[in-house]
């Protein structure tokens, strides 16, 4: 019997077929298309970087074990089985490395008229970034 899991990650929501909601898996093909990683003999690889992983535990009959994958990538995975949804957060290492590089992460947000603006649109000018809330 199969089900569909909504996986929230990287600002997206992808639906993936799973056999067991309490131990979800992801297809090896989706690993690259959704998350940008490939399974190689060396481990999980992206570009020139590879992360070691226990492949025996990772590779299951119905796909790649999502929890072991998340642990290997040091990304938090939290689930709500009742609603068949999981959130795969960003690794604190990845976020920290970007911030410590001092390269301001780019983002795109709408203004009040719905027009999109990216931080990178302002390259060449000094930018004061203010995060505020009206609650």
């Amino acid at each position, binding site marked *: 019997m199969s089900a569909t899991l*909504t996986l*929230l990650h990287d600002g997206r*929501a992808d639906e993936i077929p799973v056999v067991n909601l309490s131990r979800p898996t992801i297809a090896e093909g989706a690993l690259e298309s959704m998350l940008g990683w490939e399974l190689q003999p060396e481990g999980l690889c992206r570009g020139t970087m590879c992360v070691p992983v226990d492949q025996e535990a990772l590779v299951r009959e119905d796909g790649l074990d999502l929890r072991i994958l998340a642990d290997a990538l*040091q*990304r*938090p*995975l*939290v*689930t*709500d089985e*009742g*609603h068949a*949804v*999981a*959130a*795969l*957060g*960003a*690794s*604190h290492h990845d*976020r*920290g490395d970007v*911030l*410590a590089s*001092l*390269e*301001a*992460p*780019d*983002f795109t*947000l709408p203004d009040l008229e719905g027009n999109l603006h990216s*931080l*990178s649109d*302002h*390259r*060449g*000018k*000094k*930018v*004061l*970034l*203010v*995060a*505020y*809330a009206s*609650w």
Partner: protein
Amino acid sequence: MPDLYGMINVPTILWIDEEGRIARPNDVAFGSNDFKEMTGIDSEAHLERLRAWVRGEGPAMTPEEVRAAQSLPTEAEQEARAEFTLAWWLSQRGHGDDAEPHYVRAGELAPHDFTIRRGTMLIRGLDPMGEDFMQIVNEWTEAGNTFYRPLEAASSS
């Protein structure tokens, strides 16, 4: 934005230079003194520094100073953000009761992250400007923590 930049409260400001590099990391600063009585933070000190930086009259922080002043995201903060993401998704679909334990867990993982604790109050039926908010602030400060922690205060302690 809080996830990308490791923000844990608002207002949070950053300076970003012409090359897209962080010239001043996450800091607490207000645009006016409207809330000075409540926060104890004078907006003018930051505004003066900002004007000088924009005019090229005053130095920004060096890269080493920026890195030393940064608070980089922790594992617990990232797990809290994942719990928040899941809870928000559930709330938006009318499953507020099922979202609640995830909001609570997020607050346990990162009790100092008020973008989550205060930012989720309205959708949880709590008042982010009233007694509910004051209760978490009082609990936080009575435990010896600071609600607003500008860089200058952090570096002098």
